[in-house]
């Protein structure tokens, strides 16, 4: 009859009962390996979380985005508006710049109010120049004059 060797394996854990203050050191052998942390391996390289984004366009976006306002009233004794003029508003080198892209005209100032005043004065001068009887205009300025006539008219007395 063959002898069968039976190895009694000690448990690798210990049941702690309430009130236990100290945990005994594990005995030598297999149980110590169980206490070791697994080997730390670095994760495989991945795409970085932040990537450069290609922005198409000639200028980078401003922290203060461009907005639109409408000039509804022309503070001028001679001319008045037929309809509001759409203006883009931007801040460039601490100055407020208002631009009317339809005729490539602008006004600027330290505040929006000052820029509106500047724009109004500019329109007045441009209108009177383009309507001067002795002036002959090229194709583009004739177009500008037509656009101005859509928006501006002399005040009737």
């Amino acid at each position, binding site marked *: 009859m063959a002898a069968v060797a039976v190895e009694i394996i000690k448990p690798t854990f210990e049941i702690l009962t309430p009130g236990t203050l100290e945990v005994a050191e594990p005995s030598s052998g297999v149980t110590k390996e169980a206490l070791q942390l697994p080997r730390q391996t670095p994760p495989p390289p991945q795409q970085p979380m932040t990537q450069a984004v290609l922005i198409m366009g000639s200028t980078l976006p401003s922290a203060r985005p461009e907005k639109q306002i409408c000039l509804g009233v022309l503070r001028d004794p001679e001319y008045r508006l037929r309809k509001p003029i759409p203006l883009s508003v931007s801040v460039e080198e601490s100055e407020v710049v208002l631009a009317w892209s339809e005729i490539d005209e602008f006004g600027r100032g330290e505040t929006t109010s000052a820029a509106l005043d500047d724009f109004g004065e*500019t329109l007045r001068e441009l209108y009177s*120049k383009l309507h001067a009887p002795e002036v002959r*205009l090229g*194709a583009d300025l004739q177009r500008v004059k037509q656009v101005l006539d859509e928006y501006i008219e002399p005040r009737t007395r």
Partner: protein
Amino acid sequence: MKVHEFERIVTKLGMETRDSRDRLAWLVHDGVTVVRTRRSHGKGKYLPEHLIRQQLKVNELQFAGLISCDVTKEDYIKILTEKGIISSKSAK
């Protein structure tokens, strides 16, 4: 852009000027007023380069050439003629 750069363009193109609230400049070609621009008085005032460039009807490269010596008045007249801003009949 700087005031002296604006003035360099005005002088190079022989633009008519009038000092009003702003300094107004007009290009008159063969008796026809074709483009206009302006700047504020005073050296410290901000001149919106891109808007002045648009008034002069040129792209950034051409505008840089106007400030430097690369684009002459004849070149500029040719540019405006090609854009239809100057009538090809009057262009010389």
